[in-house]
């Protein structure tokens, strides 16, 4: 009995000790990434301020979340006078965890604006993977506005239009042409569970285990375990189907309400807002956005110009994958947007200055 207990103790000690060392290895090497998001009762999820991590997708990201909870340099909420502050909002394309911050369009745009002068420019990255227009708008009102940006660029495609579906986070709906936000998720069992596990979330091993769990949930287990054998018996099962792009849709009232609210902000004179078409949006949306006074900038000419130069703007040779914008795309987009931002919010004393 004593021998069994001794063996079990030794086994347990070795297992725990080895797992501790592996956790350390994963964190230091970047082979595993502890969660860099936290549950938030207003936002649903938010970046964990001060988190530092390595992230691999099609590309590679080495960086972190600044102390104010967004990506890139830590510009404080209080803006110095004479500074042009630009906020970028969008999904994973703006979040940009495929490349270092110094290659991001944020940095390119900032450098271009500083080069063009005469003002000092600060460009802030509020991108967050999975954000749709509803979450972008909500984040804008709850977080971004506190940093007093002069310009806010909303990067959207048709697939980013808000949907009032269920999810872990705020739920949006249009009520009497206004946006209503339902924060009842903060009372849900799922939210409470995530709060209890918030320390565990900071383990790289937990993140790995969670990724495994999510893949099993998605139904990916048989394909991963059986590889080609699975494909032999289920040909075509693992291929993705393309998303359709539509015109007006079921969520038109909600998105209309969001654009109306942004138009009010735009007309206030405190901030200039523009929509950047990262992927085509329907003509109906485009016309409406322009009709409420918000400019729409199309990125397609940027991508066409890159294609003409023989550059594939979403190809990543390191991983051999196609996906988010690569180095060339970020550089081209940043350079393209710089004069447009200057036009949108010209320096004081220049024509078009809203404060004249």
């Amino acid at each position: 009995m004593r021998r069994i207990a001794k063996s079990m103790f030794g086994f347990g000690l070795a297992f725990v000790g080895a797992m501790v060392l592996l956790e350390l290895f994963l964190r230091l090497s970047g082979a595993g990434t502890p969660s860099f998001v936290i549950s938030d009762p207003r936002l649903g999820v938010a970046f964990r301020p001060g988190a530092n991590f390595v992230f691999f997708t099609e590309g590679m990201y080495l960086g972190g979340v600044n102390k104010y909870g967004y990506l890139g340099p830590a510009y404080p909420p209080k803006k110095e006078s004479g500074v042009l502050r630009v906020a970028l909002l969008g999904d994973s394309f703006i979040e940009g965890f495929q490349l270092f911050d110094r290659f991001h369009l944020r940095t390119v745009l900032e450098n271009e604006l500083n080069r063009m002068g005469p003002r000092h420019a600060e460009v802030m990255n509020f991108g967050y993977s999975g954000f749709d227009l509803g979450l972008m708008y909500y984040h804008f009102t709850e977080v971004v506005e506190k940093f007093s940006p002069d310009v806010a660029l909303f990067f959207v495609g048709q697939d980013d239009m808000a949907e009032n579906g269920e999810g872990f986070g705020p739920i949006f709906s249009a009520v009497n042409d206004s946006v209503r936000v339902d924060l009842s998720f903060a009372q849900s069992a799922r939210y409470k569970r995530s709060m209890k596990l918030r320390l565990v979330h900071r383990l790289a091993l937990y993140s790995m285990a969670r990724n495994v769990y999510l893949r099993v949930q998605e139904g990916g287990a048989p394909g991963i375990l059986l590889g080609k054998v699975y494909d032999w018996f289920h040909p075509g099962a693992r291929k993705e189907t393309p998303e359709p792009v539509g015109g007006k849709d079921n969520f038109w009232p909600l998105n209309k309400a969001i654009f109306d609210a942004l138009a009010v902000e735009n007309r206030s004179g405190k901030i200039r807002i523009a929509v950047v078409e990262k992927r085509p949006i329907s003509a109906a949306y485009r016309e409406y956005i322009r009709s409420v006074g918000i400019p729409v900038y199309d990125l397609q000419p940027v991508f066409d110009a890159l294609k003409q130069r023989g550059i594939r703007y979403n190809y990543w040779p390191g991983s051999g994958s196609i996906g988010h914008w690569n180095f060339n795309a970020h550089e081209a987009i940043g350079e393209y947007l710089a004069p447009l931002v200057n036009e949108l919010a010209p320096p004081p004393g220049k024509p078009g200055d809203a404060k004249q």
Partner: protein
Amino acid sequence: MLFNSFIFIIFLCVVVPLALWLPRRPRNVFLLIASYFFYGYWDWRFLSLLFVSTIIDYVAARAIAATDDPRRRKRFLLLSLASNLGLLGTFKYFNFFVDSFARVAAHFGTNLDFLHLNIILPVGISFYTFQTLSYTIDVYRGKMAPTRNLLNFALYVAFFPQLVAGPIERAIHLLPQVENMRRPSRADLSEGMALITVGMFRKVIIGDTCGRYVDHIFSGPTYYSSSELLSALLLFSLQIYADFSGYSSIARGTARLLGVDLMENFNQPYLAANITEFWRRWHISLSTWLRDYLYIPLGGNRKGPKRTYVNLFATMLLGGLWHGANWTFVFWGGLHGGYLAVHKFMLKARKPDERLNYTGLASLLTFVAKVTGTYLIVLLAWLFFRSRDFTTAFYILKKIVAWSPGGFSARFAVIVLTYSVANLVLDLSEYVTRDHAFPLRTAPRFRWGIYLAAWTIIFMYMFQAKPMPFIYFQF
């Protein structure tokens, strides 16, 4: 079928128990079928090449042994050489030479692009052709008698643990084991488990994870700073070692579970104190093959010092070409040939140092200095091995040499240090215990706890990430 995949683990869980349960003769039949299934899993069309190579060498060896006429013997040897090297030349090198020739012809206004063939490189062809060649050459030299059992010979060629990336086993070592396949003992099973665990950890947790940094940086070097490029190069040296030595460990461990002993292929090469010793520790099966079937037939060191250096250089040049159809691999081989020639010149009649002979701090510091120096020249050669072309290699080299301090990231330094320490811990464990299955040196209760931790993280990583193929599969 990748070793670092769940389907391989399932395959092993089916094959090993069945193989152990079957009597000897049906066991060999079963293992041959399993080996062909393993190889055909990649692409069933290449089974025909494996089969043809097997038949030709079986017949050629028997024909060589059946006659005393030197001309007939030579003819059958040439048949074996021509068929194996012909296969290799066609599938691996045809387009390389055609494209190189076409680039030269283009300068004279001639377009030879039409000669380029649409060929897929069969996995493992460089390994099994060298393996079967060694068999016919050894029979020709009278070192061994040919086998009269086609089934056993076919299993020797196609034995799945070492089929696609070595070790390149000599028939003298592996064929008798195949012909007298024994049941594994408890010690074999323990050792097999230890080797597979260490191998999978090296390959999946060290090799694959640090390889991601390498792939991204080498695919776009112009975007990165001097320190980031140097980090990528250092990480590549760890990746290729972890990847290949991990594979060899898994191969040896798997064979052990079947009662077969495969040769060691790596012996802590980055702890070598000089380049000659490095090549006695790195890819041992290939370096000994090149020594026995290329360097010595060229004359070895028997025809004077100058010819020795030429033979060394030529052998390593061809060794580089074996690795891949690209002039960067040839250059890599040439660099190592040059290093070896210079070292041979420096050594004169002395033997190269081997293990550390600790006599005090000075001896340790000298050893560390020699190991570091050897590592640095090997690292320089790795730059050409990894780069897709000379432009990339020289760009990176220039950027590292003309060091610019900008873009230095302490985070990158920590990453490199972490992988280096992890690799060093594994290597030192092997070096000190003189045993690749060093986990067996711990008490079982601790060992099983460590195994469980290792396999937990290995499985989790395999589940969430796309399996990266072994680097040497492309050779």
